[in-house]
């Protein structure tokens, strides 16, 4: 077995450039992509930055667990959540995390169905991002239940109370949607990992790692017959995941739209939530991809073409979101309903006007910079824009949840919302959970799909 990079037997490939930046930098071979990506997990020393990042995330995760223990002991009164704002930070965080999750599925499933070769280098960690974001999202409604220890009442099962969940409620649909989404995302992610786990099994020098990766790879041998069924299953699951993503965030939108609260009761919510989800999710993928490619030297796999394309999708979905905001304003006027009209006036001029204008600045004004090619190809600028959009999408959910609830029909029922320290601990702590899982993933599993990169080398070579 030779481990040298420049093995003459390896097929050197030509870049296929048609005015575009390449999806894969030239000069890569089957062996070189395999060795470079698996070396991140197997041989190379863990970078110092990993320990720093993991340490910070882990501390935040501990803070999250501490806050959760305190919440279980004291109840939801430790948060600022109170009538009339019965849904506050937890639901804002839930919708924000679920939204972020969607880009991972979009990249891996929809771009696979559309045969977009630029998906290859980013789909694996985008899928991992999906899983971890859904895990964060799922915790918030549970914590918000008030009695989280009876969460299983949400599921239909024969019980001594002789009761069923209310299946006509979007909140119950949401339980099914999010759980299905989480399960299907795990299956899809694991399916993609099986051949790469076999690669790690075959390449690790450590006996222990060989056994662990070997068990996880389940005896994968790369047989042509297996590949045939594998590719069929992968494509089928992509086809299933695509409408699933749309359904999940539509149902999250219906959680609001089915209520009669002014500002929630609109038909535009489901599609506008889906567009917003993709918008924020791609922003998060960019936020994660830029430091990863810099720290691990993956510039030849995650190229400017990837960043450029993702920026274009952010711009496109951002425009749909902007259309959604405009439609909301228009229909509140056109409905002729004084309560609907007041929602818009209150958003723009009320006590929470700062959040509305900050959201407009983050989600509508900032993405306009992405019309410029130079901005899309400038890595630091793109990184900052992606952070701004992440903040903006959090604010959007804040505006929808808190600002709609704080003044509904009767002024006697109005109130203000003041988050407590625990609201912030839970939010920042969920970031800790997300990044702890992400750092472990980067260290233990290949963050770029190795076998798909080999396939890309093969295709690039055929095109040349």
């Amino acid at each position, binding site marked *: *077995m030779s481990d040298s990079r420049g093995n003459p037997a390896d097929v050197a490939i030509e870049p296929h450039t048609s005015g575009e930046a390449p999806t894969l930098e030239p000069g890569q071979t089957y062996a070189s992509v395999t060795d470079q990506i698996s070396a991140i997990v197997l041989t190379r020393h863990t970078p110092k930055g990993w320990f720093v990042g993991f340490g910070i995330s882990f501390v935040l995760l501990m803070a999250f667990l501490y806050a959760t223990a305190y919440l279980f002991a004291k109840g939801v009164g430790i948060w600022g959540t109170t009538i009339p704002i019965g849904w506050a930070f937890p639901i804002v965080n839930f919708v924000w995390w679920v939204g972020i999750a969607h880009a991972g599925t979009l990249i891996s499933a929809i771009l696979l169905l559309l045969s977009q070769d630029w998906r290859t280098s980013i789909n694996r960690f985008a899928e991992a991002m999906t899983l971890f974001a859904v895990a964060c999202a799922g915790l918030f409604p549970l914590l918000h239940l008030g009695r989280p220890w009876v969460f299983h009442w949400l599921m239909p099962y024969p019980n001594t109370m002789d009761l069923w969940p209310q299946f006509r409620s979007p909140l119950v649909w949401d339980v099914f949607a999010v759980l299905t989404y989480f399960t299907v995302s795990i299956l899809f992610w694991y399916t993609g990992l099986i051949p790469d786990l076999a690669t790690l099994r075959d390449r690790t020098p450590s006996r222990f790692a060989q056994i662990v990766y070997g068990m996880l790879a389940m*005896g994968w041998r790369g047989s042509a017959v297996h590949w045939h069924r594998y590719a069929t299953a992968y494509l089928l699951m992509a086809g299933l995941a695509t409408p699933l993503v749309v359904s999940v965030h539509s149902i999250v939108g219906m959680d609001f739209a089915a209520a009669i609260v002014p500002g929630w009761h609109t038909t535009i919510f489901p599609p506008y939530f889906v567009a917003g989800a993709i918008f924020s999710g791609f922003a998060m993928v960019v936020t994660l991809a830029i430091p990863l490619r810099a720290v691990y030297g993956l510039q030849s796999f995650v190229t400017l073409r990837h960043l450029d394309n993702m920026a274009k999708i952010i711009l496109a979905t951002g425009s749909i979101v902007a259309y959604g905001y405009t439609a909301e304003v228009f229909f509140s006027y056109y409905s002729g309903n004084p309560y609907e009209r007041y929602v818009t006036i209150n958003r723009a001029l009320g006590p929470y006007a700062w959040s509305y204008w900050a959201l407009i600045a983050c989600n509508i004004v900032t993405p306009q910079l992405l019309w410029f090619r130079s901005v899309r190809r400038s890595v630091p600028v793109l990184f900052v824009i992606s952070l701004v959009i992440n903040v903006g999408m959090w604010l959007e959910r804040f505006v929808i949840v808190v600002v709609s609830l704080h003044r509904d029909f009767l002024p006697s029922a109005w109130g203000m919302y003041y988050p407590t320290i625990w609201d912030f601990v839970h939010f920042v702590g969920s970031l800790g959970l997300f990044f702890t899982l992400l750092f472990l993933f980067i260290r233990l599993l290949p963050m770029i799909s190795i076998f798909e990169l080999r396939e890309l080398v093969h295709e690039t070579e055929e095109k040349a």
Partner: protein
Amino acid sequence: MGAPQKPKLPYGLLAEFEQGEALIAAVHKAYAAGYRQMNGYTPFPLDGLFEALGRRPTRLPLLTLAGGIVGGCVAYFMLYYASVISYPINVGGRPLHSWPAFIPITFELTVLGASFAAFFGMLALNGLPHPYHPLFNVPAFKLASRDRFFLCIQARDPLFTRDHTRQFLEALTPKVYEVQP
């Protein structure tokens, strides 16, 4: 140990190639020579290899369809049973069988059923998990997950003989290994 045994047949003979195209050409030749119990091993799904082996396409799509139908039916029946039979609640005379409200959960569980069928069906048809396989006895086979392409003609093929099959494969590539069972 003990009494001398008859020489055992190997699992098969394994030929190593450096190019996918060479492997496909070799499979075509082996198929023309009459070999059927053979399989190709590649680091990524190689177009044309499966067809060259002369196998029938997988029935996994049908299985997935069945999984989806089962998931959807179970979901709809559960919703109907809970809302109409087991726990009917009359809310202002609204219909108990309110099917539009049952669609989202039916859809979700259809997707779930189909995905389970696709995932576990793929594993089951592939015979995975399969921790031990004779091919893992060949050290060079580790490269099947990196940059080499393999063809294995199995001993259970009626045309297989140690010498003839080896000669046949050695005419195609210099690297031929015997796979111990």
